[in-house]
Each structure stands twice: as C-alpha cells, then as structure tokens.
C-alpha cells in the first residue's frame, strides 16, 4: 500500500522526483550502437551506500548488455506529480508503481504494454499467478514485472501482550482470539487493543483484507465484465466485528483516523496492541519510528474457515513509460529483471544486495511474500542468512505459515475506487454506534457498481 502512504503528504510522504540533470530527463537516444534509458534507482533519503550500489548495478548491467546504458535516478511514485511528468515526458523509462495504482494506469493507457517481453523471461511460468495478476490489465495482458511483494499480516506489541497477561509467543490465530486479546489488552493496560487504518483508502484496503480473510470477495469477474460484491456476508461480519470492538468491548478505543504512517507511529509508540499492515512494515517502523525491536511481533492474519479465505497482498509493479520506444521498453524489462528480481534466483546477486542493505544500516530479512515457490524462497533465505538483522524469531507466527497462505489479488478493476468507496463505510461504523452496516454495504455496493460500469 505504498500509494497510500505516499498520498499522505505531511510527515509521511510525497516523493521527490529526480532524474539527474534536466537534459537527461526521460530523454533517450538510439545512437546506432545502443539505447540509453533513465530508470528509477533509489528513493529520496536513501543513504549514499544504496545509491552507490545502484550505480554499480547499472554498470554491471551494462557489461551484461553492452547495447543498453542505464541511468539510474532518484524517483518515487507520487500520484500528484505523476500526471505532470507523464504529460511532460519527464518520467523515467522504467519505474515502480504500487499494485493498487497499476490497474488505473493500465486502464487509462498510461503505461506501456510489455506483455511479450515479460512472457519471454525464463521464470515467467514460475511466477505466483496471484502475484502476476497485479501486473495484468483487465484484458489479461501483462504490463510489468511484479517485485517487492508482501502479504498483509498482523503486527502486535509483545510488550503490551505481556503486560496484559497474554503470551507474546502465542498471538491470536482466530478472530475470536484476536477480539478477546484486544479486549484484554485494553482492559488491563488502557492501550488501544486493536486498531485499523481508515483514511486515504486504507480503510477500504484493510476491510478488504478482513473480508478476504473470512472468505469473501469485493468483485467478481466474468469475461471482461466486473460485478461489485461489496455487499457480502463476510464484509458484514468484518464490520460487525469492528463495531463490537469499538462500541461493545471498547478495545478499538481513542483515535480512528489513521493512515498508513499514522498507525505506524501509534504502534511504534506502544499505544496500539495489534494492527494489520504489509508484512514488511517493520522496515518503516525501524527507519522512521525507531521502534524497539524487542516489542515487535509479527503473525499471520487469522483466516476464517471458508475454503476461499486468504490474505490480501501488495507490492510494486515495474512498469514502462507509455512514451517508451520498443527498444527502450525491451531494455527497461531487461533492467527490471536484472535489478529487482534476479536477486531471488542468483546467489551472488542476493549476497551483494544483502551486503548493500547492511552497509546502509537498513533492515535485512524482513519477511516479504515469495513471488516464486517455497523451494526458491528457502534457497534465497539460505544465501542471505548471515546478513539478517531483524528479529526473525519474533516473526515466526507469519513466516511459519507463509506458504500455507493463499495470496489473493486486490480487486482487479478500479482497485483504488473500491477502497475509496469503502473508507466511509468503515469510518461510519467506527464513528456512529447506531450505524446500519447492512445499509452502508448496500450503498457502497451500488456506488462501486456504478464506477465499474463506467469502466
């Protein structure tokens, strides 16, 4: 859900956009013996070690592909600056977009069709289809290479668990347990037992996570027709649970207007017992909120009994600028493969990457979601295990179940709009004790259907 974090200006977000000198911006040249492309290299605030490593990678890539020159630049997805750069032709050729925003760009024709190039990659058939779905348009074509994938997971404060008389090594595995734990935390410590994000589309994002976990879906697809199924029993159950935690147990106490960064801060400050966010959120908790690692616990989101129950995941798609030429698009896909994915399939790339992260004082080993099968993942973990600097044993609730979880792709059409329509539903349930959940879902369903119909 990087997009969401980026939308919250303030402390959290909004990215800079930098691609070296003006002349280099998005401009490329096919000068007979090759092609030069600008690519997203590092994000604002990255340490020099990271920047150097990216440049070294670019040089290594050039050795492999003498006909391609890569110019990495500072860049980060930002919904506000993107249109201007797109219209002005100053985007890098290769850049990453959060899962949630990819569909919208594809539907509006704002990224290039690289279906053929991606399908030629040697590991294409090994990609987790649910991960690949994030990079596919409603036409089934592939518009980019997924990377940095994570599943939503339950983050909990081990310290508050202990204070409340709960066993921090046995986090809840069912929603009943979670609700009881939340109440116990609130009753005994006064802290908020369980909290959720609710603003800037995160409310819809997490409600969808809960709905998936209980076995429901927000959309169904039939050919290229999409139907809203927002009004489903599982969503209703999830909202009822939220309602009861807020108003009956009062364990979701205090603030409810959380966005991505806001809930991280509250959690890192020890004000919140449990919350759901991407499995890699620990990285942000460390780098920006200075969380005490000893208090951190990670476990899987409890799943319902339904066979359809699964976890919602997120990540980035390495897309190609819509203004790229064929040669540039091909070069961009080759670079994304080399730079983002190869480390999971190549030992020396894996070790080099881990070394760079360690050198830059960045967390190494935070669990993500495997984009290939379990065997490739275990092999990769073996390569980097000497560099891991995060408390993995406190994350075993998640890592031990990671491969049993079925990752479910986000609502395929109008993802952000679906989330946007659900935000007010969640907010209403949390701000009005007498909210009519069934009616709210019915209305939201109708407005999502309207958005889907418009296309």
């Amino acid at each position, binding site marked *: 859900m990087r997009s969401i*974090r980026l939308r919250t*200006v*303030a*402390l*959290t*977000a*909004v*990215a*800079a*956009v*930098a*691609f*070296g*000198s*003006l002349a280099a*911006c998005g401009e490329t040249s096919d000068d007979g013996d090759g092609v030069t492309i600008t690519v997203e290299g590092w*994000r*604002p*605030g*990255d340490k020099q070690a990271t920047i150097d490593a990216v440049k070294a990678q670019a040089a290594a890539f050039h050795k492999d592909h003498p006909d391609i020159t890569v110019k990495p*630049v*500072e860049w*980060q997805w*930002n919904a*506000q*600056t993107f*249109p*201007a*750069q797109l*219209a*002005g032709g*100053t985007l890098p050729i290769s850049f990453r977009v959060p899962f949630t925003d990819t569909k919208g760009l594809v539907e509006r024709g704002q990224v290039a069709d690289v279906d053929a190039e991606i399908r030629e990659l040697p590991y294409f058939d090994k990609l987790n289809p649910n991960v690949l779905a994030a990079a596919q348009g409603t036409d089934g074509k592939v518009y980019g290479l997924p990377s940095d994938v994570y599943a939503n997971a339950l983050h909990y404060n081990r310290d508050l668990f202990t204070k409340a008389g709960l066993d921090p090594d046995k986090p809840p595995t069912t929603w009943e347990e979670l609700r009881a734990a939340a109440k116990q935390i609130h009753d005994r410590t006064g802290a908020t037992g369980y909290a959720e994000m609710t603003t800037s589309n995160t409310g819809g994002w997490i409600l969808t996570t809960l709905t998936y976990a209980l076995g429901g879906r927000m959309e169904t697809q039939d050919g290229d027709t999409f139907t809203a199924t927002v009004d489903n029993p599982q969503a209703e159950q999830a909202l009822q649970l939220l309602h009861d935690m807020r108003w009956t147990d009062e364990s979701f106490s205090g603030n409810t207007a959380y966005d991505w*960064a806001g809930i991280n*801060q*509250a959690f*890192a*400050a*020890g*004000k919140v017992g449990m919350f759901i966010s991407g499995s890699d959120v620990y990285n*942000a908790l*460390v*780098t*920006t*909120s*200075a*969380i*005490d*690692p*000893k208090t951190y616990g990670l476990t899987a989101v409890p799943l319902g009994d339904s066979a359809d129950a699964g976890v919602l995941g997120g990540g980035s798609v390495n897309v190609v600028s819509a203004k790229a030429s064929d040669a540039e698009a091909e070069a961009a896909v080759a670079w994304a493969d080399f730079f983002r994915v190869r480390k999971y399939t190549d030992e020396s790339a894996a070790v080099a990457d881990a070394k760079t992260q360690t050198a830059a*004082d960045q*967390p190494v080993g935070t669990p993500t979601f495997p984009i290939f099968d379990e065997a490739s993942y275990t092999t990769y973990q073996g390569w980097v295990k000497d560099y891991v600097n995060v408390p993995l044993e406190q994350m075993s609730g998640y890592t031990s179940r990671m491969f049993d979880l079925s990752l479910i792709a986000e609502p395929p059409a109008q993802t952000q709009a679906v989330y946007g329509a659900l935000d007010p539903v969640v907010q209403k349930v949390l701000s009005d004790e007498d909210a009519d959940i069934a009616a709210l879902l019915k209305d939201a369903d109708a407005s999502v259907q309207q958005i889907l119909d418009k296309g």
Partner: protein
Amino acid sequence: MAGEVGGTPTQDTLRSPIALWPNGPDLSILSQAWTELGLSSYLVNTVIIAAGSWAVQVLVATTAGYALSVLRPRLGRVLYGAVLATMFVPIVLLLVPLYLTVLSLPVVHWSLVGTYAGAFLPAGASAFNVVLMKRFFDSLPREILDAARIDGAGPYRLFWSVVLPMSRPVLGVVSVFAVLAAWKDFIWPLIVLPDPAKQPIAVRLPSIAPATDLSVLLAAMAISAALPIVFFLLFQRLFLRSEGLEGAVKG
C-alpha cells in the same frame, strides 16, 4: 540503530509529542539533523528561491498595483478582473498545464524545469499581492500624488520617489508573505526541481521523511521554521513601527 531501548528521542516524540524532550533536552539531535541530512545546501537553495520569489512578487505587485490604481489604463478594470479571476481557480489543478508551460515557454520554447527561476517565477502571479497593493495605493491621499504631478513628476518618478516610499507597511506585508510562501511551498518546486541538489528544504524534508528517523526529521523542521521567524522579527521593525500604532493608548 534500533537497538537502543525505549527512551530514544523518536520514541519520546511519538509517546508524548508535546512534552518537550521528556528524557531531557538533546541538542545533539539538532546538529545530527544538520550534518546527517545535509541541511546547509537545502537552506541555500531555499534562500535563493525565496529571494527570487520575493523579487518577482514585489516587482509584479508594485508595478501592477501602481498601474491599476494610479495610472488607470483604459482596460484597467478588465485586467484587474482577469487578475482577480485567477484567485478562483484552485492552484492544485494548474499543476499539469503550468508544468507543460514551464517545460516549454510559449514562443521562445525555453525550458525552466530544473532551474531556480522555474521554481520562483510562477509565484509572481499572485492575485493576492496585486489586490493588496492596489487597495493600498487606492487609499494613498490623492492630494499628495496630485501635488507631485504639479511639481512635474512623471509616472516613473511618481512611482519611485513618492508612491514606493509611502508604501513601506504594505511592502512589508507582501515581502513577508512572499518569503514565507516560498519557504513553505512544496508541490510545485517538487515537480519543477527534479534534481535533489537544487531542492529547497520544504521539498526535501517531506520527501525523505519515509526513510528518516522522526526525531531527526522534526529537529530539521524546527531549524527550517526558525529562520523565517528570525527573518520576521528582524524585518517587522521596518514596517510595523509607526506613530499610528501608539495612538490608541496615548493619552
């Protein structure tokens, strides 16, 4: 980095943001912010942009206000209306067309992207300033202007030697607002200055926020907010001092 327990400055900030440094003041965080984030170069950028922004805003506002209020050209009302109208269009929406304009100026096709001028020139198109200035000039005693004309002052001398010196308070207001707006502006310089080496501090700090320790970030923001305050305190003597202010209590 994350190994320290509990009482890190960031943790203090998050737990009790208004209790200033519950674990004791830690001034080293200021110097840490200064060196670690390389604030000095961003401050230099900020000062350049603020100075340019101030110059263009004062130039446009004074000349336009003078022309519209004192010289009164035939189409003055239409022009004033056109200036006022720009106030009603939300800036956020102009980002794309403005960027395209700055990327390739009409007729000359120069690109201002990546230049300081690209960041501060558009600030000159401030309807607020023009309105403020024109209103102020409207309220200048006409007798003085007429007397100057009778003494043979042309439009240029009238502007430079009569109107401007009488406008100290409003020039002060426009200057303070101009500098401040340039200091705080975020989204436009972010788009127009893609090179981090040229970005002002208000752009750089939020950009690096997701990768920066919160307490260091807040220290950096405190530093960046301190300068306009100092500027204001020094500058206000120039325009808030007058006999009139004493009047209400003198007896």
